[in-house]
């Protein structure tokens, strides 16, 4: 999945075009228990990092660094 697509999927989940890739995903104003579940599902369906729980996702300092980790083969 390309970065642009990843961002557009996130903007569908968060229901806003405002996605700052330098921001921590868990700091997005629409991050909650429901949107976080959709993020888990997005990752599960598109990347091979199946063990990434919320505690681990929270550790990425930006959406960009999360994406880079996910795209690593």
């Amino acid at each position, binding site marked *: 999945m390309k970065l642009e697509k990843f961002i557009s999927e996130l903007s569908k989940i968060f229901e806003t075009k405002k996605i700052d890739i330098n921001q921590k995903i868990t700091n997005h104003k629409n991050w*909650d*228990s*429901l949107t976080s579940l959709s993020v888990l*599902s997005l990752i*599960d369906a598109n990347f091979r990092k199946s*063990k990434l*729980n*919320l505690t681990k996702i929270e550790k990425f300092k930006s959406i960009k660094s999360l994406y880079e980790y996910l795209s690593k083969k």
Partner: protein
Amino acid sequence: MLLNFKDKVISSIISVIPDKKIKFESGMKNYNFSKDQNLKLKKIMGFGARHVAKKKMTVSDLSIHGIKFLIKKNIIKKKDIGAIILVTQTPDHIIPPTSNIIQSKLNLSNNTLCLDINQGCAGYLIGLMVSFNILNLKKFKKILLINADVLSKKVSKFDRNSHPLIGDAATISVVENKKNEKIFLSLNMDGKNANFLKIPAGGIKIPFSKFTSKLKTDKSGNKRSLENLFMKGDEVYLFIMNTVPKMIESILKKNKLYLEQIKYFFFHQPNKFILKKLSEKMNIDEDKMPNNIVGMYGNSSGASIPINICKNFKKKSTRKDNLVCLAGFGVGLTWASMIINLSSLKFKKIIKLS
């Protein structure tokens, strides 16, 4: 582990649902969510109504109501009942087994085996496995397999993780020896992650006390006490997505079956979201994997698969068209699936108890 069984059938299933119906909206005010968030939660998870037991209604009440119905309609005769196997996590008492209470209230003979099993969302498959094995004993009569829980009594109303989905129910399946196609079972356990789904207090390790009934707020604003059901939502989701599709793929492959040969996938229904994601991941039509139970009655743990069958199974005249796949996943952690032909299912019904 992969197991198989010969010439066992489920001949009847009755589901008993408490009459008391609660709509999602009536619990919303207690969740730490805005109105918009709540409505989104409802839509995505497919929450609608739940049926819950009245204050004094127990597992034995629901079960006895169903068994009496079966006896009255002559679906089973008292003298043909060889065992009551009850799968529950909310027994009437810690001691004695609730199955013995049911035996006594129905005046069943002393030759009846009574057995309680502590299992949750995969409890239907565990119960069937135990029933099939007991039926291998010489001249064993029919088995009443009961899956019943009143978990709504153990859920905090301030916990939007669990409260909007839990419903109560009992199902009684008549399991017996009769010619049938081979039955395949895949059974898997992971006690290392047992903490993902737990009621911490009320057993011997943490007895009830003033301390255990105190509500505490978690990071997401949900309030619950140590006496309430606790579910680690993200971990449970990952567990299901990581284990269930692989399990189904392997049970089919090992037994030389194809996805297309299975007419229905009657899965446990925790919420609509998970079932949709499972059907997408496994490339199964949503029509073949019903997800309508949780929004009508709630998630009733081990009873949800038999309720799913009662509501959605349409028997065909050709035997091969009645081949179905059942799957349960949750507490334990446990995940299990079974491929079984339901051609011998001659009676199924959903009734209410007020």
